[in-house]
């Protein structure tokens, strides 16, 4: 009964969104009352979606197993937290969450944007159309309210134990909030293209929304990477899995967008390009939704295969993207400014980096789609491994950091003299070459990309350090938000390089009572504990580890192997010892017949700093929202 109420609210909401869309098409000739009506009807639609979702959460907490989706993805014995997160553990519920977030963002936007804004009614209309399209998709192809008739099961299914984890439970919501957040930029700019009134200052409107979306997407990706690191036992943080790539594309495009928005609010020349980017970010999110949910790509993340869903999403995204691009093509001649970009001006460097980012997006997309194309043409199965992405992304990261550093001291709309003997640019280049050479000399054995990464990371750090010093001594203008974000980027580049260059692993055979020594630590395997928990049995190894250096610091580590009862699934819980610059990461392998165990010991350098740098970048972007964007 309660499920029907929730279902009813959702169906009504889709009707309201359709209504709001129809009203918005009638407001082409300005009609103030109708515009208010569009906004009102839209609000009710959103509230109905929220009410419906809250009821669904309640049903999930109550373990209402008459609903097929809840029965298949939840369980009576789960903690309340995981009962709620089970809603987005599979296709139907996560689509529901996606729609809730779409409505949430749009409703905030609807609420914040003054009624007098010329583009309010059309952009709300576009948002209504998008939400309506997704609601129809949910209700007709992936209904989360399907019932199990006539008798509901007593208990639900068991959730995969590796998915019962706090980081994983909150990772999809952040990711979706990020993906969906770029819808505001998409809708508002499409509305701008439809109206074609060039005086409208859309940069200012969509900038804060895009920044928040970018922050949330960054947090979502970081959480996923952190979870994969400690839970999957491979000791890696990024695997170039197709679904990761699909999240990376809107992230790259979003990064380009928030930079371009800044530039086009200061100089006219990039306006057309920025609009194209704002369309692309959301289009890439839609593309991601299609890839993940159509099941056309083989991935650990892929949801159940259903061609019908894929086709609907493809058609719907196609309509949205093509109509938006058509308006773009129509308005483009007016958007193109007659001023050329001055060489060696700030926007010239920004444009180069824009091109580099688009190249990266193109390369990643090709990597995702190429196995499909290849299978279609040659009927052979291939996959594209991490080396491909590393070969492409490393030089792009290198080049774009150099142009970033060039742009720091340059001026808007003016060529600037960057290289002179005592210029901060020359100084930072010299210093980072010195640091890179020093590290190369210390290591003896290295690869070119490693030194390149170190060089570009330090280049950024030193350039901003000099800027900060200059700011303090000469009271020069200093964009703190940008500086903090880019310092985060510098740390990220250094950490990724060091992690890839220095981390190593050892596989050893060891039995209780034995010890193993390498040049840094001595590992004593003391004994094993057998533990019986409610839903799994566990065997826990107890390692006493001694630092070989003068400090003789001693600590324990407990890598573990679990066997869950219901699925009979075996999982390894790696033990991780965190030190400032490296993690010690121990995974318990198999037991051999002679009582020995296979144990994997990894030293992962600077891995924490990868996530810390993501947090720093988010903080910088958070500050950028507060900063008032200055209009030309």
């Amino acid at each position, binding site marked *: 009964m309660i499920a029907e109420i929730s279902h009813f609210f959702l169906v009504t909401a889709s009707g309201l969104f359709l209504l709001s869309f129809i009203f918005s098409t009638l407001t082409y000739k300005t009609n103030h009352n109708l515009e208010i009506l569009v906004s009102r009807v839209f609000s009710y639609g959103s509230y109905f979606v929220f009410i419906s979702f809250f009821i669904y959460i309640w049903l999930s907490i109550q373990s209402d197993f008459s609903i097929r989706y809840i029965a298949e993805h939840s369980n009576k014995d789960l903690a309340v937290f995981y009962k709620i997160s089970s809603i987005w553990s599979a296709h139907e519920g996560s689509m529901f969450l996606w729609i809730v977030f779409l409505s949430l963002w749009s409703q905030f936007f609807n609420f914040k944007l003054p009624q007098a804004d010329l583009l309010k009614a059309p952009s709300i209309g576009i948002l209504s159309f998008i939400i309506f399209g997704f609601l129809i998709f949910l209700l007709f192809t992936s209904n989360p309210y399907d019932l199990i008739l006539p008798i509901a099961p007593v208990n639900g299914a068991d959730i995969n134990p590796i998915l019962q984890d706090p980081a994983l439970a909150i990772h999809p919501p952040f990711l979706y909030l990020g993906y969906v957040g770029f819808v505001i930029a998409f809708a508002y700019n499409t509305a701008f293209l439809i109206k074609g009134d060039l005086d409208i200052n859309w940069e200012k409107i969509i900038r804060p929304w895009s920044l928040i979306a970018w922050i949330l997407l960054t947090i979502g990706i970081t959480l996923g990477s952190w979870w994969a690191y400690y839970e999957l036992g491979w000791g890696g943080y990024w695997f170039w899995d197709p679904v990761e790539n699909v999240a990376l594309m809107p992230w790259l495009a979003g990064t380009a967008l928030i930079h371009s928005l800044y530039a086009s609010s200061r100089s006219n020349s990039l306006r057309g390009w920025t609009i194209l980017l704002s369309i692309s970010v959301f289009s890439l999110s839609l593309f991601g939704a299609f890839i993940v949910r159509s099941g056309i790509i083989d991935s650990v993340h892929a949801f159940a295969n259903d061609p019908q869903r894929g086709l609907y999403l493809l058609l719907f995204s196609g309509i949205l993207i093509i109509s938006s691009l058509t308006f773009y093509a129509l308005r483009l001649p007016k958007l193109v400014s007659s001023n050329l970009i001055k060489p060696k001006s700030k926007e010239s460097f920004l444009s180069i980096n824009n091109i580099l980012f688009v190249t990266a997006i193109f390369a990643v997309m090709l990597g995702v789609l190429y196995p499909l194309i290849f299978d279609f043409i040659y009927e052979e*199965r291939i996959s594209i491994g991490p*080396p491909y992405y590393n070969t492409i992304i490393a030089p792009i990261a290198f080049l774009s950091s150099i142009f970033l550093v060039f742009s720091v001291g340059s001026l808007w709309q003016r060529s600037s003299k960057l290289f002179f003997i005592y210029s901060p640019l020359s100084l930072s280049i010299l210093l980072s070459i010195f640091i890179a050479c020093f590290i190369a000399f210390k290591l003896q054995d290295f690869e070119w990309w490693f030194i390149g990464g170190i060089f570009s990371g330090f280049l950024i750090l030193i350039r901003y350090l000099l800027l900060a010093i200059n700011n303090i001594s000469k009271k020069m203008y200093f964009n703190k938000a940008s500086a903090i974000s880019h310092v985060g980027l510098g740390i990220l580049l250094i950490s990724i390089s060091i992690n890839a260059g220095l981390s190593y692993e050892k*596989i050893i055979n060891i039995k209780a009572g034995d010890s193993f020594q390498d040049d840094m630590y001595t590992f004593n395997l003391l004994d094993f504990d057998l533990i019986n928990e409610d839903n799994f049995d566990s065997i826990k190894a107890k390692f006493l580890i001694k630092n070989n250096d003068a400090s003789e610091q001693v600590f324990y580590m407990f890598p573990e192997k679990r066997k869950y009862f219901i699925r009979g699934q075996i999982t390894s819980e790696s033990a991780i010892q965190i030190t400032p610059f490296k993690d010690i990461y121990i995974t318990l392998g198999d037991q051999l017949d002679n009582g020995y165990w296979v144990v994997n010991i990894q030293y992962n350098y600077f891995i924490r700093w990868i996530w810390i740098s993501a947090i720093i970048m988010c903080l910088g972007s958070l500050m950028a929202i507060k900063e008032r964007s200055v209009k030309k």
Partner: protein
Amino acid sequence: MNKIRKQRLFNVFLIICVSSLGVFFILKALNSNLDYFYTPSEVLIANIPQDKRIKIGGMVKKDSVDRNGTKVIFKITDFENTIEVHYEGVIPDLFKEGSGVVAYGKIRDKTLIAENIFAKHDENYMPPNIEISSG
């Protein structure tokens, strides 16, 4: 006007040159990093160069797993042919006799020297080609 035209034309030309160079490098990287996917039967027929890394998918043959220290030897089967796999390292938790596996590495004398072993996060997983041929 004319000067601007000229400059613009030059910019377009420059962008086309740079991006075709970019596309060339991307395609080159793509082609040198393709990993082909084979079933054991296909491996026996195909002529695979020694330095080429490939993926072999199939089921772990029953009673074929032999552990010796940190080394593991097992056979992958597609129920018609089998390929022996040598691997050194920790094998994934989901690796089981009789369940699906993908091994990645180079071929030496009809044996795969594996660098990586993948077991799917799903006990009902069937390697794609086998599913097609058996179903």
